């Protein structure tokens, strides 16, 4: 016993050291695949680290309106002071004094109204008349401020175009959502990459701290959403689920094993191969990939649940008069075949090409083989020869009756096939959102906040790039602005948020400078336009001076905007992405009803370096690609397993007898999933592989061993119940992926065990 504990302590120590040296990484991005086309590569990179991923949407509710406004203002001020956010938007947001000055200075270079004909007497006359009219009105203080320096209204037009489309109602310095329940809204842009869970947690903490510092009254609450929150919530959700379920499953399993063996040391003994397998899998993944992804670790450990079977089989199959070492040597050929076949079955995961699944596959494969080896060579040395651990006999009356009924089994399979044929099998999961570990409640909140803030989820967009410079990218954006107009007219989209909307290219700015009139020409045009109007001759001195200044200005660029105009830069920066020396532009489309039609039309535009991308379509295509690859590899893995069994059992017929329950279990599971309306995802496929690995154990030991006595049946039943306990718990998870795996494996294990029993020949009397 002390030896077992010493080994466990050693393994735990090694595991701790390894985890400390190469801690698991929580960045969801690394779990995702690299793209296969330029579009998908760009998309995935943006999804992982793009500016859109750092957006935080927030709502404050549960207090009277005035109180909410105060909370909103103070929270926003706290966020700005924290320095953790590149941008904070709330009801107090407007162009600041220095920002306004910068944009005002550049008004004629920025305004699309700047054309030679805009400064003729004929064009100026109505502007002056309108100005005079405005000066009579109640708005005269504002008009007097801008009107004489900018009688053409270039600046006010720009400000309206940039900030005017906000649909959010401002009250008392806070944005309020429409509706009866008062709800103040805020947005913030963090500085870390969006899918980096740790960075996002920091940003969320800063948000909660700023809210708490505003001393919210009881009942007031802060709701947060956004890709970053999703990443953090997903990580936390999986962690919570795994912890809760693992704990329950471990307790159940421990209780069950104790009941079976009436011995506590058994629990420690069973833990040894599991721990060794985890350690080896972890080490292998670190050696191959430099680190282990937290999700791969979670899935990998889950899949290694299989290896609990190995020590259980060893302990239960030991005959009363046999030493553990002899028993291990006796069952080794079957155990070896089971472990190798299960490992080969994982080929599909490795071949899927999805980095996360590949890691999980490597982790589990290496772990399986290690566990088998540990069971064979290490366990017998840990238990003193005189120790007697025996499974208590099970009453197997009803199960015994099931044995040797291949016709019943075939009938069940026929029903499963009929169900599959009738229902067409389970649907393939195409919607990435359904796979998301983010709770549906959180997804709904996100959609609601985006709607209220007028910040639609970016789905369809044009990608501009790669370009060598900011100017080139802005030039393409301008070309796209013109080219897309017919598509807008056809109703394929309502509009585009182009980078060039906020910052014209240097070339366009230069051409606008060239369009500005000379001093003499402008003075003459103004004089002519003002005939009969009561303007003093010097009234427009600021206008003519601005014209001279504008002609000499260096072109405005992104760096100048970022330094001097934070509000506009905050609008523009999410639309610009830099990757090394490459500059990319992003132009999200609004009002897209038919992404496929728009995609076809966009392809017909013939603009070089402009790409249309529909996030959902592209993701579906990516998933389909990976699903195809996984399926092909699963088939290859199946054939390989069959070959291995044929070689290992030295008979194709016996191989088929073993393969029967395995294939049957997969069929029955698919039928059940179809009946339960579960849509099949990549993760279900992975779970089917795991299930096949388990079924191999049962079938090999039951059907092919030729020792299908009560002891074997009892041993396999113990294994099956252990697995059912673990994965049954997993199927209760709220995380869709974990739920899917749990349900698939639990159903399959039950089916595999019963089918393996039924396919087993009736007990030979001599045994």
């Amino acid at each position, binding site marked *: 016993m002390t030896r077992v504990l010493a080994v466990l302590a050693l393994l735990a120590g090694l595991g701790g050291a390894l985890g400390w040296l190469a801690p698991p990484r929580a960045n969801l991005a690394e779990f995702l695949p690299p793209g296969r086309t330029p579009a998908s590569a760009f998309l995935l990179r943006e999804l992982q680290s793009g500016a859109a991923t750092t957006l935080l949407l927030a709502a404050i509710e549960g207090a009277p309106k005035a109180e909410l406004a105060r909370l909103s203002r103070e929270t926003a001020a706290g966020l700005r002071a924290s320095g953790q956010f590149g941008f904070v938007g709330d009801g107090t947001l407007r162009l600041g004094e220095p920002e306004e000055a910068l944009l005002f200075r550049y008004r004629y270079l920025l305004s699309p109204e700047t054309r030679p004909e805009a400064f003729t007497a004929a064009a100026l006359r109505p502007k002056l008349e309108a100005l005079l009219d405005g000066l009579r009105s109640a*708005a005269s*203080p504002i008009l007097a401020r801008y009107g004489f320096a900018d009688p053409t209204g270039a600046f006010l037009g720009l400000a309206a175009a940039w900030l005017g489309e906000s649909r959010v*109602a401002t009250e008392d310095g806070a944005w309020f959502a429409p509706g009866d329940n008062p709800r103040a809204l805020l947005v913030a842009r963090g500085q870390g990459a969006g899918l980096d869970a740790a960075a996002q947690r920091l940003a969320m903490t800063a948000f909660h701290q700023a809210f708490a510092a505003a001393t919210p009254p009881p009942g007031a609450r802060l709701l947060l959403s956004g890709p970053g929150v999703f990443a953090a919530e997903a990580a936390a959700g999986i962690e919570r689920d795994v912890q809760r379920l693992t704990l329950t499953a471990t307790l159940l399993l421990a209780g069950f094993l104790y009941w079976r063996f009436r011995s506590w040391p058994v629990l420690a003994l069973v833990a040894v191969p599991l721990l060794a397998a985890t350690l080896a899998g972890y080490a292998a993944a670190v050696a191959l990939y430099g680190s282990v992804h937290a999700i791969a670790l979670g899935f990998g450990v889950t899949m290694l649940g299989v290896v609990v079977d190995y020590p259980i089989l060893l302990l239960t199959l030991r005959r009363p008069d046999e030493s553990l070492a002899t028993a291990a040597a006796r069952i080794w050929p079957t155990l070896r075949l089971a472990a190798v076949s299960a490992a080969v079955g994982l080929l599909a995961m490795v071949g899927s090409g999805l980095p996360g699944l590949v890691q999980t596959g490597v982790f589990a494969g290496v772990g399986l083989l290690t566990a088998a080896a540990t069971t064979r060579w290490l366990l017998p040395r840990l238990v003193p020869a005189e120790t007697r651990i025996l499974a208590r006999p099970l009453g197997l009356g009803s199960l015994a009756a099931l044995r040797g009924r291949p016709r019943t089994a075939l009938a069940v399979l026929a029903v499963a096939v009929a169900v599959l044929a009738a229902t067409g099998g389970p649907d393939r999961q195409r919607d990435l959102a359904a796979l998301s570990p983010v709770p549906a409640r959180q997804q709904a909140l996100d959609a609601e906040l985006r709607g209220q803030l007028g910040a639609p989820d970016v789905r369809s967009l044009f990608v501009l790039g790669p370009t060598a410079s900011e100017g080139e990218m802005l030039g393409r954006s301008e070309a796209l602005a013109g080219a897309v107009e017919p598509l807008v007219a056809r109703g394929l989209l309502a509009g585009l948020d182009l980078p060039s909307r906020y910052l014209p290219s240097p070339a366009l700015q230069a051409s606008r400078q060239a369009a500005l009139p000379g001093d003499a020409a402008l003075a003459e045009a103004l004089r002519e336009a003002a005939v009969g109007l*009561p303007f003093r001759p010097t009234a427009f001195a600021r206008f003519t001076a601005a014209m001279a200044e504008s002609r000499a200005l260096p072109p405005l660029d992104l760096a100048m905007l970022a330094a001097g105009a934070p509000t506009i830069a905050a609008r523009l920066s999410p639309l610009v992405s830099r990757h090394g020396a490459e500059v990319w532009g992003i132009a999200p489309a609004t009002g897209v009803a038919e992404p496929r039609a728009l995609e076809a039309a966009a392809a017909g535009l013939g603009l070089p370096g402009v790409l249309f991308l529909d996030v959902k379509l592209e993701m579906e295509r990516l998933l389909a690609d990976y699903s195809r690859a996984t399926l092909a590899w699963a088939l290859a893995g199946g054939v390989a397993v069959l070959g291995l069994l044929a070689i290992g059992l030295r008979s194709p017929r016996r191989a088929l007898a073993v393969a029967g329950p395995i294939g049957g279990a997969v069929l029955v599971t698919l039928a059940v999933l179809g009946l339960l309306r579960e849509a099949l995802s990549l993760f279900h496929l992975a779970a089917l592989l795991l299930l096949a690995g388990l079924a191999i154990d049962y079938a090999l030991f039951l059907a092919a061993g030729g020792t299908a006595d009560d002891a074997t049946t009892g041993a396999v039943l113990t294994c099956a119940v252990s697995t059912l306990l673990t994965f049954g718990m997993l199927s209760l998870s709220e995380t869709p992926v974990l739920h899917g795996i749990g349900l698939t494996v639990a159903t399959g294990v039950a089916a595999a065990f019963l089918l393996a029993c039924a396919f087993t020949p009736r007990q030979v009397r001599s045994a």
Partner: protein
Amino acid sequence: MRASRRALLLAPLAAPALAAEPTLEQVMQALAAVPAQRSRFTEDKVIPELEVGQPNEGTLSWQAPDRLEKHTTWPIDERVTVAAGRLTYERRDRGVQREFALGDQPEMQALVEAVRGTLAGDLAALRRHYGVAFAATAAGWRMVLTPLSLRVLGAVQRITVTGQGNELRSVETEGGGGVDRMQIAPAP
């Protein structure tokens, strides 16, 4: 005649109150006690860039606590209504109607608050936007409002409000080198 006779009758009673000059708080309390009021105004805007002044006139209606309407009847027809933090701008001759939250327009909000805050006797609201200097005068009282916000100061440098008892008499707005003088009298 009747009014002057009544004033004579009341003179002995009013004398002690007149002797003490009204304080800002007293004036605000008196203004706050007025539930509704209709007045006529004449306004003359002097803008340095224009050779001529821009005169106009109309009516001013007040309904406590926050409804203010400035209806210009000559030379243009323009109606500005403020209620519950929203401003409605209407020019029937141009078919223009706009509505926005005052919170979105800090300059307009400050200008509106100068008049609304005074009529409501809401000193706290005035002090949110302005430095308030008060003086009793021979005719009544005078309040000089200096915008606190730099942004508002860019458009308006000073607003001088005068009144008599609980009635507004004039609002003079200085900004951008020009001045807007509004004289107010009770509506007939």
